[in-house]
């Protein structure tokens, strides 16, 4: 069984008077331990797909299952709790709370658990070390470079040891060098720590680092290595 199972998913949005159909019967599997890049033009539904996997949004029809959990049918309250333990999400920008230090930002998901201060402390330190920012723990976001901010966000995304990591255009705002830092880190997380990673990206370099690349166009997958039958129309 795949880690993420998307089955015959339909998703529409109402924008002003128009109804926009993003997905019309999408079916897709993502295996545990995979590193998948999702590419495609804007409006193709990449971010929407990420949101569906994370339980931030619900499909109009169809099911989304992550690690056995029926994400598409859980309530908002259940989803919040589930997300805290199972999902690590990184945005393109504006990840960190400016009023908290790097350490405090990374600690956020752990506040939702029952861990003691001591345990939380340990995990935050480990997460920051993994991303190479152990010495920046007490810095505020405004004191960090763009690349460092994103790495802090990644630290936050892994600190609770989630089932899957979802990143929406993580290198979109970064320069070449910082992008490389971030992508190298992601690769490491996948190969060394066996994290399942899905990134949405425009960047071909980023896609190269991934093990699998999926292309979405108008809500349909094209070029589908390791995908189950029935998706294309």
């Amino acid at each position, binding site marked *: 069984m795949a880690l993420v199972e998307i089955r015959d998913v339909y998703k529409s949005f109402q924008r002003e008077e128009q109804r926009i159909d993003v997905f019309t019967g999408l079916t897709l599997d993502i295996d545990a331990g995979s590193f998948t890049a999702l590419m495609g033009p804007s409006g193709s539904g990449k*971010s929407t797909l990420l*949101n569906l996997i*994370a339980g*931030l*949004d619900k499909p109009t029809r169809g099911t989304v299952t992550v690690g056995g959990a029926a994400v598409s049918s859980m309530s*908002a*309250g259940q989803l*919040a*709790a*589930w*997300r*805290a*333990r199972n*999902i690590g*999400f990184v*945005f*393109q*920008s*504006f*990840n960190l*709370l*400016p*009023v*908290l230090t790097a350490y*405090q930002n990374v600690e*956020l*998901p752990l*506040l*939702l658990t029952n861990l003691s*201060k001591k345990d939380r402390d340990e995990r935050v330190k480990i997460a920051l070390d993994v991303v190479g920012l152990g010495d920046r723990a007490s810095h505020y976001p405004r004191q960090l470079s763009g690349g460092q901010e994103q790495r802090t966000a990644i630290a*936050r995304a892994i600190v609770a040891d989630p089932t899957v990591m979802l990143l*929406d*255009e993580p290198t979109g705002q970064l320069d070449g060098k910082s992008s490389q830092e971030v992508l190298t880190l992601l690769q490491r997380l996948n190969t060394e720590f066996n994290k399942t990673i899905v990134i949405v990206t425009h960047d071909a370099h980023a896609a190269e680092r991934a093990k699998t690349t999926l292309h979405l166009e108008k809500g349909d997958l094209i070029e589908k290595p390791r995908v189950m039958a029935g998706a294309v129309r």
Partner: protein
Amino acid sequence: MKYMRLVLANLGRHKVRTILTIASVALALFLFASLRSVTTTLAATAQFGGARRLVTLNATGLVFPLPISYANRIKGLPGVTAVSWANWFGGRYGDGKTFFANFAVDPESYLAIYPEIVLPADQKQAFIQDRTGALIGKRLIGRYGWKLGQNVTLQGTIFPGDWTFTIRGVYTPTDPAIGDDVLIFHHDYFDERIGRAGIAGWYIVEIDDAAKAAVIAKSIDDVFRNSSSPTKTGTEREFQASFATMWGNVSFLMSTIGLAVVFAILLVTANAMMMSARERTGEIAVLKTVGFSDKLLFGLVMIEAGVMALTGAALGLGFAKILYPSINFNGAGFLPGFKVATSTLVVGALIAVGLMLASGLVPAVRAARLPIVQALRKVE
């Protein structure tokens, strides 16, 4: 509270705004406590009054005197253990711009009937023995810089002329409603100078059993009912209470202003909260993505409002509680024993809680209901 760090960090985002808001709440609650204390203090003065003391006035009105011969007749009634009397003098001191009460009393019986008037035994003796002596409350010492043994001259208003007394004693009242800014002198001297012996402004009657107050009061009034100066007797508390009602609608006025004040700060706090909330939609979306539930975010916003409201309340109420006793405020004599009562603190705290709920509610609900996806779209 592991989330406190987050709450405090949010409050620290705009330190100026947070400080100003807390200061507004503090000011408003200080004002509220002060105003309410006027009402509670007036009510408290109506509580003063020895349960075993009655006051006998001329039934026609408090400005009319009673014959001194009544003293013995009252003393002879069953249940009466002691009688004393006093006359309002109303003298002016200096330029008359500051005012203090002054009256003529029968020294030994008056001091006996009011054990709340406390002074050293030697001063008491000196006062009793000097016919032109005066006994003053300790506040007057501070106000005018008088000293023991000094001569003080009052201008008579009702009883004309210059009246000079020698200060023989300074008293400290054990009950604030007695007033620590009063001057009393000898009735004998008063009688002698006005040349018209034998009048008392009012009588103070001590009885043996507080439960019999109404009965004894009636018996006194019965004795004089058909004479040329009928009396009206009541407990000392009733007498004090009637003074409090002379303020008319003051209580009502104070409550209304108090309400206006509370409402005004509510507006200020609510405004500040809403401004903060509006700026944070992106962050709230991120927190929800990380897994903070709607309920949790609702709570965090409410706690934020609560921290501001309760800190402000503590500062404002606390300051009021400490200020007035430390400056010995008594509203120029009209509000003796002015202080912030416990009930006022309780009401103030409740107001703070109400403030927290009212100002935090809308932003908290908004945060809880924030649709993550839409908010994120704006963010990206």
